[in-house]
């Protein structure tokens, strides 16, 4: 048995799609809806649902604007979302053997 604590898992980020969105935004900074949808290889509806959940959790920020008279929705990671991602990665790292390959991701650890 490990000392794995299920309660410590961030339920918001435990979804693969939401985790992918948050990680993608960590690298891309600010992108529009289409870029998020394409990066996560999901449908419009599915992406919308997950983005809404992340927004409700305060992990991402949404901003609307017009480009060439067309509405555009931009998303970016909030500080809370970045901290949640860091905590999630830290939690995963606790599951790895201490002498093993501890991942060093400069972006995650920034």
């Amino acid at each position, binding site marked *: 048995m*490990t000392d*794995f604590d299920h309660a410590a898992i961030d339920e918001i980020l435990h979804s*693969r799609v939401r*985790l*992918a969105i948050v*990680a*993608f*935004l*960590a*690298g*891309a*900074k*600010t*992108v*529009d809806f*289409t*870029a998020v949808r394409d*990066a996560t290889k999901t449908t419009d509806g599915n992406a919308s649902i997950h983005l809404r959940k992340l927004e409700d959790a305060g992990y991402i920020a949404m*901003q609307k*604007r017009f*480009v*060439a008279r067309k509405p*555009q929705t*931009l998303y*970016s990671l909030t500080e809370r979302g970045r901290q949640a*991602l860091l905590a*999630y*990665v830290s939690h*995963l*790292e606790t*599951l*790895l*053997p201490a002498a*093993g*390959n501890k*991942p060093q*991701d400069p*972006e*995650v650890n920034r």
Partner: protein
Amino acid sequence: MIEDQAREDIAFIRRAIEEGGAYATASSPEMLVWGIMLAIGYLGTYGFVRGWSPVAPGALWAACMGLPWLFSLRRLARGLAGRGVTNRGPMAQAAAMLWLGCAIVLTTLATAAMVTGEARGGWVSAVVAGVMGFGVFASAWLVRLPWLRWVGIAWWLGELALFALRHRAEALPLAAALMLLLLAGPGYVLLARRGRQAEA
């Protein structure tokens, strides 16, 4: 088992961050700046050839290549100094270095062709288009933007057209159109998708 899952999750996160970083690299304003300036260079040269413009091509191209270089070098210096947008991950760095290499090749080739008078042969524009196609096509894979591959293919079709027209002045406006449509255009699309604050 749970350790394997944790490793897999961390690798998944790393890939997603890498993809985001590569996307940010592809969405730089350099495509827009270079595309517009090179189009001005071609149109100005066409104007000179036709007698509509008094500006000599040498001075014009010095400005049209020098200014984008200054812009790119300033961004590079800001990135190295830890300000502005930095490259993220090996794929993003590969894409940035690919374009730096392409820019060096094209600048040295164009300069040598102008100094030696070879530019009058008209083949330089076709070579430029071929290198642009290579850069765009390879970037499409590196930054995972499938639609960009078609832009690379369009550059290669443009290369053939420019080679066919190499002895005619009409190759110059065609090259300008390619720069606007296939370099500045995608640059604008990528920038618009990325958001306005990114390069501030």
